[in-house]
């Protein structure tokens, strides 16, 4: 199993992806879509999405396990699993974590992460229908979009500072 993102994402990002620029790899595109998907909880299966790598590339190797943990948190919310429930949490960890894989993900884990990335891309094109031409403008739009979605999110609202968990 691998990380997959639909081909349209490549077309959408092509105006702002450059070798030496801020958005320089396919994984950058994937990550930006993924975080938006996790922020909104939107996950969409996209069969036939082309695969690119099956490991976290260098830019993301340090935060790989954080992303896996965020997947577990989002899924716990989606499935109605209380993180205090030891048995349910263990089942989730068993479902998504593979200690023998370089990415520490099972096939199910890869699949779910890909679903969030595809859902996040849908969110992105809905928010920014015209493909962006300037990366600096895009980044500002993106960071604001993330903040907005997190503000309105069931999954993450409880983690707002001052809110009760």
């Amino acid at each position, binding site marked *: 199993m691998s990380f997959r993102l639909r*081909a349209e994402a*490549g077309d959408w990002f*092509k105006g702002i*992806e450059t070798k030496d*620029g*801020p*958005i320089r790899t*396919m994984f*950058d595109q994937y*990550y*930006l879509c993924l*975080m938006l998907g*996790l*922020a909104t909880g939107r996950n969409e299966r996209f069969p*036939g999405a*082309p*695969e*690119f790598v099956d490991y976290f590339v260098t*830019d*993301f190797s*340090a*935060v790989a*396990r*954080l*992303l*896996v*943990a*965020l997947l*577990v*948190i989002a899924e716990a919310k989606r499935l109605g699993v209380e*993180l*205090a*429930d*030891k*048995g349910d*949490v*263990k089942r989730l*960890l*068993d479902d998504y*974590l593979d*200690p*023998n894989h370089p990415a*520490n993900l099972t096939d199910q884990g890869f699949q779910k992460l890909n679903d969030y990335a595809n859902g996040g891309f849908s969110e992105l094109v809905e928010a920014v229908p015209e493909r962006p031409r300037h*990366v*600096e*403008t895009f*980044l*500002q739009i*993106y*960071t604001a979009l*993330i*903040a907005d979605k*997190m503000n309105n999110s069931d999954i*993450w*609202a409880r*983690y*707002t*500072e001052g809110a009760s*968990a």
Partner: protein
Amino acid sequence: MKIRLAGWDSTGLRSPDVKLSLAEHGKVPRLVLLQMPNGTGKTTTLNLIQAAMTGSAANWTAEQIGDLQRAGATNPTGTFVLRLLVDTSPLVFEIHFDFVEGAAAYRTSSPSLGGVVEGWKCPPTVRRFLTESFASLFVFDAEFADRLLKPQFAEAERAIDALCQLDLLDRTAAVAESDWDRASRGQGARTPQGLNLYRNRRDSLEKREKDLSRALKGLKRNNELLKEEAAQHEKSIADRIAESQKFREQSQELRERVSNARLRLAAASLQVMAYVRQPQLLDDRFGRALIAFRDSLDRARLPEASSRQFFLELAEEAECICGRPISDHERGQILEHASKYLGDELAGVINAIKADIGQHVGGDVRVAERQLYKVSTHELGAAEAEYHEADTALQALTAEAFREDEEKQLMSIQAQITEKRGQIEENEDQIREIERSARSTDDENTLCLAAIRKQLREARDKIAEISNTVRMRQETVAIQQLAARSKIIARDKLREVLRVECNERLRRILANDPIQIKRIGQSLELEKQRGASVGQTLAVGYTFLTSVLHRGSHDFPLIVDSPAGSLDDKVRREVGAMIPVLCEQFTAFMIPTERPYFLQALESRGTDDIRYLTLFRKSSGTQTLIQGLPNHGVTQTTNAVLVDGRDYFNQFELADEPEES
């Protein structure tokens, strides 16, 4: 190597129960004459001797095995034991017949096997001779010699093939074929045509790779030129604007501001993205969620102190760590509940997640970095604003200069710049497409160079694989042709050698009635005559067989059913005189009526090395014989009488047995 028949035992079978030992002090007689009336089981005994030698009874049907049971008998089993001497070493094959199950089981005993072993296990030194095809050359009936002269049976060719193991060449060819088949299975194309298809694909991909590489270079070079031209045009505009005193200073200042703002903007973008790549900084709630997740794992005591492996290993022990014995019940419980615990390796990953959260997200580190992230986003905003402002001002200045350019040269140059920028963008789109990573949906028409190279690598790998297969096929065919040719050559040479040898022996044996072999093909073709008399046929047959069997340094026994058969007096004399010369051990299963002339001829070279045995069943028809048995040399079983001795052999007279065997 010498193989000798040392005797056999038969119990519970349709042939009479008998224990027959031929060997005395490790020696077996040169001639063994076993006289049995018709119906005593000669054919059955011969078949059993062959089956014991070759292991063939293991493949007999239940019906064949059932036929071995004596008519009317109720014994569920029967046994046949064959004793051979291989040089001086005993080799014993025992067949146990189960008439109820319809099965036959073997046991073999030999010093080289370490004693008695289950199954038909032939020692390696003698295995090649104890095959069905080979054994039929020295365990046969007299009609076999007749078949040697008949082309439709191809017995002569079979005998040569069996002796010289020419079937090994056939097996070599078959092994080569199955090896190739195994190696090439699942590889798709296995022929030169299939190889060509892939070669064509490779050539096409190589061309495409070259074309794309060339196109990429061209596009990049073109873009460099275009950028340079556009830059020159822009400089030209700037210079023209700067020529005007009105615009000079402002223009230069604005260009510098734009350039600096662009650099600042690029740096700010890179910095922001570096922070965005860290989810705990992207939004603070991600960070808090991760901390909460870690805390919930701690509260749930995950991972547990004990892992699944601990319980799985505990279940294998006899005692628990507390000292109590672990019975099957406790073991089952432990294994059932072990699955509820996490495995060692998964526990490690969870601990690593918790450590990463602590390292990247916890406490003051997070607060400081979050602050830096906010600053960088502000910086990005400010840099962009500054850039836009400077760029807008520059564009306004440029527009004013354009308006004042009465010759419209600036506008013309700007149009060229716009056109070039458009072309640059198009080229960059294509460059991006050529340089992007490969996708699984890319086919051979893609513009993506990485995808073409991947397909090219796969095509080359496939060609290497098929080439290997095709080459292997060619080698396989070469081996098969070599084996076939070798077989023909070997067979031809052997035939000629045997022909010469047989003819030399025939000249000695049949000096008064000369006959020569003209050619050995599938059968023996005689010189100057199509067929032969019965005597000549037997002479030729026996000569050929013994020549074949005695090639090399090996000796085999001849075991023949009815050697004299329906021969007349003269022929009996000829055949009888010939046999002691031809072989080292001759065992004849004969009926009393074969004795006249044949026995005398056999005895013409002395009687010392001849064993005379008479075997008949106990029945109502043989009661008088039982009453007239000699005082010595008699062995009786429940259903048979075996008499050892020349005198009894010569006087024994009995018509056919009442019971047909």
